[in-house]
C-alpha cells in the first residue's frame, strides 16, 4: 500500500490500510492488530535518504556522497508537472545549466528550474526564485511557468 495515503502522528508515519506505524528510520514501531507485539526489526518500509534545501525536498535511491547543491538566496516557489520529457522542457526554457538547475527568465525575472522526469512523459518542475522576490514578481513567474507548460505540451501534441 502506498504510504502517501497514510498519516503522521507524533514522530511516526501510519499506513492507512492496517495502521502499521513506522519511525523516521523506516523501522516498524507498532502493529495495531497485535498491540502487545514488539515488531521484529526486520519489518521496515525501506526509507530513502532525503535532504531539504532551498525549500525543496530531495530524495535518492542510495545515500549520495554529497549534499544537494544549495542555490544561495533562492527559495522554491511552486511546482508543476509537465506532460513532456525533460529534454523538451529544457529546450523550451533555453536555460543555461547551472549545477543541476536550469537558469531561466520567467515573467521578467531570473529563476532556477530543478526537474525530475519521473515518467517518460511527466516532469516535475520546481521553480526557485529570489528569496526577496515581492508578491507581484512571484505571480508573474507563476503565470509564465504555466505558459511554458502550454508551449512544451503543444509541441508534444504537434509531434
Amino acid at each position, binding site marked *: 500500500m502506498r504510504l502517501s495515503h497514510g*498519516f503522521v*502522528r507524533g514522530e511516526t508515519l501510519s499506513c*492507512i490500510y492496517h495502521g502499521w506505524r513506522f*519511525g523516521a528510520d523506516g523501522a516498524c*514501531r507498532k502493529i495495531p492488530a497485535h498491540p502487545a507485539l514488539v515488531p521484529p526489526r526486520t519489518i521496515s518500509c525501506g526509507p530513502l535518504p532525503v535532504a531539504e534545501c532551498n525549500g525543496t525536498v530531495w530524495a535518492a535511491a542510495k545515500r549520495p556522497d554529497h549534499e544537494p547543491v544549495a542555490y544561495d538566496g533562492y527559495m522554491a516557489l511552486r511546482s508543476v508537472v509537465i506532460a513532456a520529457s525533460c529534454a523538451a522542457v529544457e529546450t523550451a526554457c533555453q536555460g543555461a545549466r547551472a549545477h543541476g538547475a536550469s537558469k531561466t527568465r520567467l515573467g521578467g525575472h531570473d529563476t532556477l528550474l530543478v526537474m525530475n522526469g519521473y515518467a517518460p512523459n511527466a516532469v*516535475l518542475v520546481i521553480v526557485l526564485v529570489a528569496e526577496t522576490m515581492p508578491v507581484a514578481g512571484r505571480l508573474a513567474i507563476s503565470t509564465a511557468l*504555466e505558459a511554458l507548460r502550454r508551449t512544451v505540451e503543444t509541441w508534444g501534441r504537434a509531434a
Partner: protein
Amino acid sequence: MILYDYILSPSCYKVRLLASLLGAPLDLRPVDFHPGREHKAAELLALNPAGSIPILVDGDLVLTESAAILAYLAAQKGGYWLAGDAPAAIARHQQWLDFSHRLTQALGGARLVEMLHFEGDLAALQTRGVAALRELEAALFVQRLGGQSYLIRDTPSIADIACFPYVALAPDGSIPLDPYPSIRIWMRAIRALPGFIEMPGIHRRHDLAPDPFAEVPS
C-alpha cells in the same frame, strides 16, 4: 428537510457535508441510483424532471442542483458560508460555483465510466478533468500567495464545498492528485474543519483523532 440522497454521489455528499458543518439536521431518503436507476423513475422525475440527485424538500419548497441547495442551507444559518456583500467576492464566489459544474461533468464523468460502467469518452473526460484541476491549482496557489487558504478568502465558503468532493475523488476516475500541492493543502484544510464528515473514497484525518497508542516510541 428531506434530502434525496445517494451514499456514493459526490453531489449529494456536498449537501450532507455542509449540513454537518452547519450542524443542520437532514432526513436522508436513500435513492437506489446504482444499480436501480431510481433517479430516472416516475416518483423522482416528478420532483426533478432533470433526473438528477440531490433533491432537497423543505415543506412546499423543492430544490434541485446542489449549488442551490448549499446556498439555501447556508442562508438559513446566518450566511457565514455565503459570499458577503462585496461585488468582487459575490462574483468570484459565483465563478467557482459555475466552475464546479465542469468538475462534475469531467471528473464525475470519468469516475462514473471507470467505476460504475457508465458510457462516456474516458480520455476526453480525463483531459478536461486535468485542465480543470490545473486551473484550480493555479488559483489556490495565488490565494496562498495572498495568505488565503480557501477559494475566495481565508475562511471557507460554499464555493469550496461545491468544488471539494469531485476534486477529492478524481483518482476514482484514474486522475491522480499528486501533481497538485496547493489542492492537497486546501483539501487537508477542508478535512480538518469541525463537523467534517467523510464519504467512501475520502478518508477522514486520522491524525486529528487522539492517538490510541500515545506511548509509541518514535
